[in-house]
């Protein structure tokens, strides 16, 4: 029997980029993240979690990156029959000197709750962070429908 499992779904959304340089962009990030999550068939809870994680990561860029600027890119992901969303948050800010410390709840250099990175990590299926002083920060998250 022929199978189409190896073929990506025909209705995968193309990649979208959102420039982050002001508070209004938080709403855009949430809204684009939500459309991708819904398009990929994520349930309400998985959608709410990934949209919240995206909001935390976009706010991190506003608070920490040089000039509060960065970029978020969104794309659909597929793996066999499973579909999901992937989002990458990149800035060319100062970078994080101690990534392990930044991933601990309650660690903050700006007087916030320090939940952004560790919290968003707990909300998604896949999370990776790449940062070094002077090189900026790149955080990738992925949430699957199944």
């Amino acid at each position, binding site marked *: 029997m022929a199978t189409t499992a190896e073929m990506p779904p025909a209705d995968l959304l193309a990649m979208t980029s959102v420039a982050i340089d002001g*508070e*209004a962009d*938080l*709403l855009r990030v*949430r*809204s684009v993240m*939500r459309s991708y999550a819904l398009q990929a068939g994520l349930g*309400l*809870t998985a*959608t*709410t*979690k990934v*949209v*919240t994680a995206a*909001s*935390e990561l976009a*706010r991190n860029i506003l608070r920490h990156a040089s000039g509060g600027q960065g970029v978020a890119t969104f794309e659909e992901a597929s793996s066999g029959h499973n579909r999901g969303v992937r989002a990458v948050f990149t800035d060319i800010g100062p970078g994080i000197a101690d990534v392990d410390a930044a991933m601990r*709840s309650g660690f903050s250099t700006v007087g*916030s*709750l320090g*939940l*952004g990175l*560790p*919290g*968003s990590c*707990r*909300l998604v299926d896949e999370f990776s962070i790449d940062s070094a002083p002077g090189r900026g920060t790149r955080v990738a998250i992925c949430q699957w429908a199944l």
Partner: protein
Amino acid sequence: MPDQSAIMRMGRDLLVILHGDLDDRTVESIEREVTSEVARTSARGALIDVSGVDVIDSFVAQVLARLVRMVRLLGAEAAIVGIRPAVAITLVELGASMPEVTTALSAEQGMARLRRMRADDSARIDHGNHR
């Protein structure tokens, strides 16, 4: 008052309804507005209904918890009501579950809880006066 909110008076309580997507500036302006409205109307309680809010991230949660503390400092009770189940799950996993904040499933239950808290308070005061 921003478009994403409305304040209604119900007797001596305020019902604050939030809906839609709240950005940082909006939620902070709602915080100021509600605090001054509680003081202006000498409200005894404020219910903040978030059943129409899709996403509460750590910043919004932090401001809502701060708003509840401010209202209490003004001598009124405050509760957050109608948190959606998906939002509740998200807040717990995020680590921003606002443990010190009074909550209720709906505005109706929240109102009942505020009234019960006030009844307990006045019972305590009466008891104190008799001694």
